[in-house]
């Protein structure tokens, strides 16, 4: 997989666009079981990422991902900033400039482990890990872009009946059941945008 400058800028715009367009939806999900700032926080973070273009896309892929992560850490706020930011930063640290699919599998695994450590959490606790972990499994099994995108959507849906164990929603106990986890939804949106942009790249 080789991403030239144009493809890197397209990827950044797709990631940011997916979050910004769905900011209201993320906020309403968060109003149900959190503190209602997820859409606003993520939107602010990705607007800050967009503001670093075009220079951002001049960087090689690993450095670009690290820079995105750092911007998210500094701008998003809430717990999402460090969690999503850590994912991007660790992905950038682990990926070579022209990653193979195996590199992508290994790097996302490292990034997911870093998110687990940052949040002291595991899959099954109604967090973004409930999207990242199953999507990674599909990626590792050789799933194509369509399969990865479908799993991202379904995995976010599967958080609806879960009871939150970590994060603000855990304060609600059983009342967190019946609402989709906003962090899972935003992770799903980011993954969907990424694979759509990378569709013709990921198998090469």
């Amino acid at each position, binding site marked *: 997989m080789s991403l030239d400058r144009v493809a890197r800028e397209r990827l950044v715009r797709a990631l940011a666009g997916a979050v910004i367009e769905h900011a209201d939806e993320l906020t309403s999900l968060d109003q149900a079981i959190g503190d209602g*700032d997820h859409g606003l*926080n993520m939107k*602010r973070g990705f607007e800050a990422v967009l503001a670093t273009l075009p220079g951002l896309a001049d960087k090689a892929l690993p450095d670009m991902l690290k820079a995105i992560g750092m911007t998210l850490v*500094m701008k998003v706020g809430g717990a999402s900033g460090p*969690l999503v930011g850590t994912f991007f930063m660790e992905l950038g640290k682990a990926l070579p400039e022209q990653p193979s699919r195996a590199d992508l599998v290994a790097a996302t695994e490292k990034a997911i482990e870093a998110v687990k450590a940052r949040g002291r959490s595991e899959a099954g606790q109604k967090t973004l890990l409930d999207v990242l972990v199953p999507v990674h499994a599909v990626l590792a099994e050789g799933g194509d872009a369509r399969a990865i995108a479908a799993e991202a959507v379904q995995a976010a849906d599967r958080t609806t009946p879960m009871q939150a164990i970590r994060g603000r929603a855990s304060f609600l106990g059983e009342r967190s059941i019946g609402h989709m986890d906003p962090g899972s939804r935003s992770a799903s949106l980011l993954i969907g945008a990424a694979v759509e942009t990378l569709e013709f790249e990921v198998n090469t």
Partner: protein
Amino acid sequence: MSSLRPGNVGIVIVSHSPKIAEGAADMVRQMVGDAVPLAWTGGDVDGGLGTNVAGILEAIETAWSPAGVAILVDLGGAETNSEMAVEMLPEDRRARVLVCNAPVVEGAVIAATESSGGSPLAAVKRSAEEFYA
């Protein structure tokens, strides 16, 4: 936002609400006095409710003491952002900053009281956390 008294462990207060953070700092100053380096931060980068890493890093710098810094936080994101900020510190400072698992107001007062007596960082953290136990 603070006054500097090097030597004793510094205290940093991190709340989603700048008013709570400032109010807790006022309580520390009134109840414990000026013997400890103290700083507070609260709010997201746009001034709304939330916490932000840059603000926490600045507060750690303001309250810095060779004896280290104890951070008191309120809810989830305050803790995660504080841990992120600690990891972004220079290597030689990282091990001298601890996030306490304690209620933010009571923990800050107790930690500052312990610090004002010259206790080391581990003891300051323990005192704040015993409030929960």
